[in-house]
């Protein structure tokens, strides 16, 4: 059981703008990248295949997977990190489980997640 003190500290860290993300969503994650004294935004677009470490804390991460010139690429983003500028929801997918690790064994058309049409 998590202590209420820890829960309170984690709550202070949590961002409220990323609650909507679900497995199967197609998202664009805009990350702030600091290089010396310069800043730029990097965008990573792909499917959310897993939400890790639970949702009710500041340690939540999401695994985003995309196919880049034929190679599967996965990135794990801390959902509550201040370095994430924003997460854009492109569309919702129809999926039946919380962890879409079966996507790793699929490629091409088979790796496409069916798009929900009435998600807005």
């Amino acid at each position, binding site marked *: 059981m*998590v*202590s209420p*003190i*820890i829960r309170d*500290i*984690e709550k202070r*860290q949590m961002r409220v703008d990323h609650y909507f993300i679900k497995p199967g969503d197609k998202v664009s994650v805009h990350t*702030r990248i*600091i290089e010396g004294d310069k800043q730029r935004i990097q965008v990573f677009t792909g499917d959310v295949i897993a939400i890790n470490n639970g949702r009710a*804390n*500041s*340690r939540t991460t999401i695994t985003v997977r995309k196919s880049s010139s034929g190679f599967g690429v996965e990135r794990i983003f*801390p959902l*509550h*990190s*201040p*370095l994430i500028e924003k997460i854009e929801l492109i569309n919702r997918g129809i999926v039946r489980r919380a962890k879409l690790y079966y996507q790793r064994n699929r490629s091409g058309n088979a790796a496409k997640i069916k798009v929900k049409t009435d998600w807005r």
Partner: protein
Amino acid sequence: MSAGLIGKKVGMTQIFNEDGVSIPVTVIEAGPCFIIQKKSTEKDGYCAVQVGFEQKSKNVRKPEAGHFKSAGKGIFRRLKEFRVNEKDLQGLNLGDELKADLFKVGEKVKVTGFTKGRGFTGVVKRWNFSGGSDAHGSKFHRKGGAVGQNVHPGKIWKGKRMAGRLGNEQVTIKNLEVVKIYPEKNLLLLKGAIPGATGGVVYIKKSK
């Protein structure tokens, strides 16, 4: 040397710093602590303050109540002495409250606590022996093996690493960075792990 604090380990989590880097932290509920007794060179031969933590009202014996009387802050469950130098001792009075803001963010502290007791453990866990193969027909799995020679020396050397009790010993971790302080709640957030289980009592001092 300034006084230290007695605290309770609350648990671990992680927080983001200004650069967005997540830092693993241990949360300690450090205080409120009160100065119960002052020890001086003239009277005791050394300078120190005795600090109390966690008030109690049950099972108080008369001599115990007498010891806490002059501080006038009630009876405390935990007591710990911290050595201070003579100059600092003069600035401290009986009954003074010591709070988590005794430390500053960025400061290095050392934390003393008791590790989790593991009970009677074998040599693989206690001394990191490699043990034997689990397969390929091996009959030697997690044993310690031979412990000595023959007629000479005719005994087992003292200190030979064998199975036995592990844990529940005092351990001090030095140079832990103070990442954040919540003075109103007496919470200290230190970078990294500290000994003991959640709820365990720890002593926090400034690192030299």
